[in-house]
């Protein structure tokens, strides 16, 4: 059984066909990246995987479950980090983690363990007790990634996990994702514009362009196949962008 099986996924939004029959598969424990320009359909695909949007056509299976019909079951083992996610500004970082842990854990003890783990991942020091309204963008993102990973999901869906962050925060987040994926056999599907990040994190990637998957493979395979120095050049060649 694959972690993710997407077949002929179609999505119409606001009268436009945003996804035009996307298909891909992700193995358990794999870190899979979706790469493409703005408007290619990456976020829509991730939102469908996260059960926020329903497919107009096609099928999405997560660990064998139908992501359209068995949404409540699917939500028990996924963790989604939207690109523009926010945190509750009037809760402290610690209260936020407590709130989230309380929704995933069956028992108080397990919730406490999750929070301890979240505090460790976020690594915000004493600021974890401050209201999140006082956090910088990087600190918020660290808290959000901590929330997404502390619950030990089977599948983490991360939309642009380091978008707009400075090098210090971006590095912290990338290292935590890599560490957790390896340590806990976590399956990760992420989107990113940062090709260095994709090369650092992903086992395999799919190029998305115009609502379609135009190529799939490992970063190494892409570079070899297209004789490119990096993924950016490979994408340009596959997409026919010169």
């Amino acid at each position, binding site marked *: 059984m694959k972690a993710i099986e997407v077949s002929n996924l179609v999505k119409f939004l606001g009268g436009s066909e945003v996804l035009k029959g996307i298909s891909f598969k992700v193995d358990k424990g794999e870190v899979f990246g979706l790469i493409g320009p703005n408007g290619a359909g990456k976020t829509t695909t991730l939102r469908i995987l*996260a059960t*926020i949007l329903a497919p107009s056509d096609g099928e999405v299976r997560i660990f064998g479950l139908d992501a359209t019909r068995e949404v409540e079951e699917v*939500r028990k083992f996924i963790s989604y*980090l939207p690109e523009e*996610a926010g945190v509750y500004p009037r*809760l402290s970082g610690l209260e936020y983690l407590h709130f989230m842990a*309380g929704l995933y854990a069956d028992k108080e003890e397990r919730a406490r363990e999750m929070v301890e783990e979240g505090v460790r991942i976020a690594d915000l020091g004493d600021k974890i007790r401050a209201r999140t309204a006082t956090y910088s963008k990087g600190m918020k993102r660290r808290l959000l990634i901590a929330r997404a990973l502390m619950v030990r999901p089977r599948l983490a869906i991360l939309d642009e996990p380091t978008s707009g962050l400075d090098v210090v925060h971006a590095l912290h987040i990338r290292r935590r994702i890599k560490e957790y994926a390896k340590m806990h056999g976590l399956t990760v599907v992420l989107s990113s514009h940062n090709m260095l990040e994709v090369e650092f994190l992903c086992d395999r990637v799919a190029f998305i362009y115009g609502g379609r998957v135009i190529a799939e493979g490992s970063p190494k395979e892409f570079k070899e196949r297209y004789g490119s120095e990096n993924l950016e050049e490979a994408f340009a060649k596959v997409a026919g962008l010169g």
Partner: protein
Amino acid sequence: MARHFKAMLLKEVKELVRDPRILLGVVIVPLVMFPLMGYAFSVAGEAAEREVIGLRVALIDCDGSAYSLLLRNLMRRLGDVVSIPAAEPSWIESALSEGARIIVKVPKGFSSNLSVGLPGTVEVYLVARSLSISEVNVYGAVSSVLNLYARELSTRIINQHAPEINASTVLNPLLINGRTILKGSVIDVPPESLASTVMSQAMMMPIIIMVLIVTAAQIAATSIAMEKEEKTLETLLTLPVRRVTILWGKLMGSAVVAVVGVAAYMVGFTYYMNALTGRWQQGTPSNTPLLQIPLEGYAILTASLFFSLMSALALAMLLGAYTQDVRSAQSLLGILYVPVFVPALILMFADISTLPLGVQVLLYAIPFSHPVIAAKSMAIGEYIIPILGALYNVAFMVVVLYVAARLFNSEKVVVAKLTLKRKPLGG
């Protein structure tokens, strides 16, 4: 499920009460604004009362009779009475230079008119210093002394011309002993007292209900719009929590904060009303035992209010879900104010049974009418309409909650957006 609900409710309440917009608008402002307004009225009222203490009255007595002497003695009740000689040509200027607030002139022939059965005339001048309520108070004080004077004159004239008649009976020939029949029994409550009781219940209940529903609706719409504005909604919707639980957490969180807000409002409003009327509500007709709503009545009223509150919250949540930020949600909520305010205002002044049939049907169809109707009906022991109203509100709430739950279960809660398109100017 219960664990999830508790977590959602706690989060909602924390977020809402810590929001300065909610804290300020729902709790602080009523607790500060109303007492401040009340204080302002008290200060103004006290100042107005001080104005009528120790008034200086200038009396120009051109008649020089026993009757004018009586007036002079009665005028002393107001304060100093300064006599201005009748021969003084510029008597107004003289009175003003004496600092008089009231000038009373008794013309020559005043007493002779009375002695031949004609009314006597006195000229009264109010020296107005400003256009304020205190001037009205000054004139009111003078009028009551003049009324006393007129009564005394009547008594004297009656005694003089018909000593065998009791002057007091002539002046007050009718004693009205009013009673009220309520639910078929005669009760020892004067009708005017009953009327003011009904007035008090008819006015206060709609105000409380209006404020509660509007406050709760504002909070609920803010709660969902805040999730969108702060970009927390998408994450929330992917959590392993049933969407209905999220909805209930939001509804109940808003209701809890609204109840606290309304309590604050009522504390502030009561203080304001007391300051305005200058007395506490004790001894007022609302304490009339026969008009108190019995316990089972309160249960029906509470149920009716709860169900209409939940309907309002769910409607507000639906409206809030179609906006992208708190400000837009507050604006869009204006749609909901019409069916809340209109029935309350109509029912404040009219009994529903006296209204045209079409208006009655419309009012019964609006769920927010029923708590107001229930409050008024149960004060006089009518239960059937309030019970039917509460049942109607249950049905309405179920329908609205079903629609809200459907919205929360669909992707519309994320993608729904109401935009007011503007026509471009020119070509």
